[in-house]
């Protein structure tokens, strides 16, 4: 085996700058061992970290000096004031309602969008790209910012939170769904269209059964995320637990905050457990 026949493709830029190590083996063959990329990666990483340290005014001594403060606050949070619990119930239910309604509506809107955004079903490139672009923009704006704008638009309250959750759900579920739609088996669809079914009929009977379980499990996953997200939306005035969180922190009532967080914790764990159980039923 001569050296020239091995090198079919042009070496990468890195290998042209740092030539590979030439090793002559005992049996007369020669092999090229590319130089490790590790030093280059490490240098880049070091530069990035150094710049970041400068920009963020990193000061570790601050933590050592004032770390006791954190202990005091955490100590109070872990002694929740149970007498405050009756006031937590109503915002807690608001949070569940916001995320539930937002998830259901968002998932319903996401389904057609995802179908039109999957390249194996929608052959029309421009509409595909436009829908994907809109979805990407929706996903890239943080939920809290959307909630903030909604709170100005629809006046403060749960409705703004509901709209923000719906937007977030559309972005996330549609993306996960079109990625799974692109992996489905299209042969049943082609078989049905060859029988003379319209593409809508064929899609309904051949593709829907394949999509449905993944779709439902994406929806459940998104519901889990939404409950967590909805709990802080109140911070910008969009209803739910967030109002209490900002109020308790403002009053430095950390044991009150403790009970808010405890009820959120119990809620999230319950929902995680329940949706895990449902998902295991689905698959």
């Amino acid at each position, binding site marked *: 085996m001569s050296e020239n026949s091995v090198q079919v493709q042009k070496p990468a830029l890195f290998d042209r700058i740092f030539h590979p190590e030439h090793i002559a083996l005992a049996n007369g063959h020669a092999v090229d061992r590319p130089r490790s990329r590790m030093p280059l990666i490490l240098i880049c990483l070091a530069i990035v970290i150094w710049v970041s340290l400068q920009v963020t005014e990193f000061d570790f001594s601050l933590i050592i000096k004032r770390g006791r403060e954190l202990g005091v606050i955490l100590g109070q949070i872990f002694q929740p004031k149970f007498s405050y619990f009756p006031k937590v119930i109503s915002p807690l239910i608001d949070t569940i309602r916001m995320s539930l309604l937002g998830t259901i509506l968002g998932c319903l809107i996401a389904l057609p969008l995802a179908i039109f955004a999957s390249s194996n079903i929608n052959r029309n490139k421009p509409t595909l790209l436009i829908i994907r672009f809109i979805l990407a923009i929706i996903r890239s704006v943080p939920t809290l910012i959307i909630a903030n704008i909604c709170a100005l638009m629809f006046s403060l309250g749960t409705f703004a939170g509901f709209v923000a959750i719906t937007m977030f759900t559309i972005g996330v579920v549609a993306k996960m769904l079109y990625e799974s739609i692109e992996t489905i088996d299209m042969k049943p669809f082609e078989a049905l269209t060859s029988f003379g079914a319209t593409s809508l009929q064929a899609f309904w009977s051949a593709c829907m059964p394949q999509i449905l379980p993944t779709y439902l499990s994406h929806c459940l996953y998104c519901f889990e995320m939404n409950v967590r997200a909805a709990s802080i939306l109140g911070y910008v005035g969009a209803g739910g637990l967030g109002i209490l969180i900002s109020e308790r922190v403002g009053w430095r009532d950390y044991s009150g*905050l403790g009970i808010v967080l405890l009820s959120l914790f119990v809620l999230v764990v319950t929902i995680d457990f329940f949706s895990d159980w449902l998902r295991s039923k689905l698959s």
Partner: protein
Amino acid sequence: MSEKKLSIEEMYEARPKSLLIRILVFVIILALVIWSKAGINFSGVAAKGSDIAWGTIYGITHPDSTLLFDMSHDGVLYLTLQTIAIAVLGTIIGGILSIPVSFLASTNIVPKWLAVIFRALILLVRTIPSLVWALVWIRVTGPGPFCGVVTQSICSIGMISKMYITAIEDLDTGILESLDASGCTTFQKIRCGILPQLMAGFISTVIYRFDINLKDSATLGLIGAGGIGASLVIAISGRRWNMVGSYLLALIVVVLIIEYFSTRIRAKLARGEK
């Protein structure tokens, strides 16, 4: 079914019928919708609601270009850099802190009771929203980007550890045994037996988390933890749509670019390329 040949009609009759379940699921979802609808009070669009909707769209299409290319510390460029820097440091520190935590929470490394304790801790960290962590940390570090870094370092532990644990519990111990048999020292076993198995999974987790942290660090600015969020919210409440537009535009562009590269790098890592 395969023993007896069925005609198409008979097969069609024998198709799974789940009408009852479907109706039941539909009724449950309908009931949930009605129940939650009762709590969502739609009080109508606020007096200038449509102005705000148009303002946002107008702002994104007509961003404030002087602000966009302003090199000072209040300019979009510097704030975006700060947002990225917070996410970078938070993710890296979180990723490093997660390593011992996740080893201590893996059932194939430590006894079960210890693993359960650490898993409960991880769950606790994951459930508390990052905004609340930031509100607590800000009392320690004071407002500024440093608070964002510390918050993200702690918050990232939750999700990163969860994914690390899956990687650690999938470790193939047969490799360690064969390295043992060939007389490797403990260090060599870790270097050649454990690291190559874990590295790809760990790096791809960290990159994925970086994506999330980037959006998160824009949010944390809301409470004064540095980054682009604070100026964005001030601009929104002041209804300076051109400024809102330029901040949002920068945020969207950065998030999309980083999402694109992170997806590509993770796909490469999953295929096992270097």
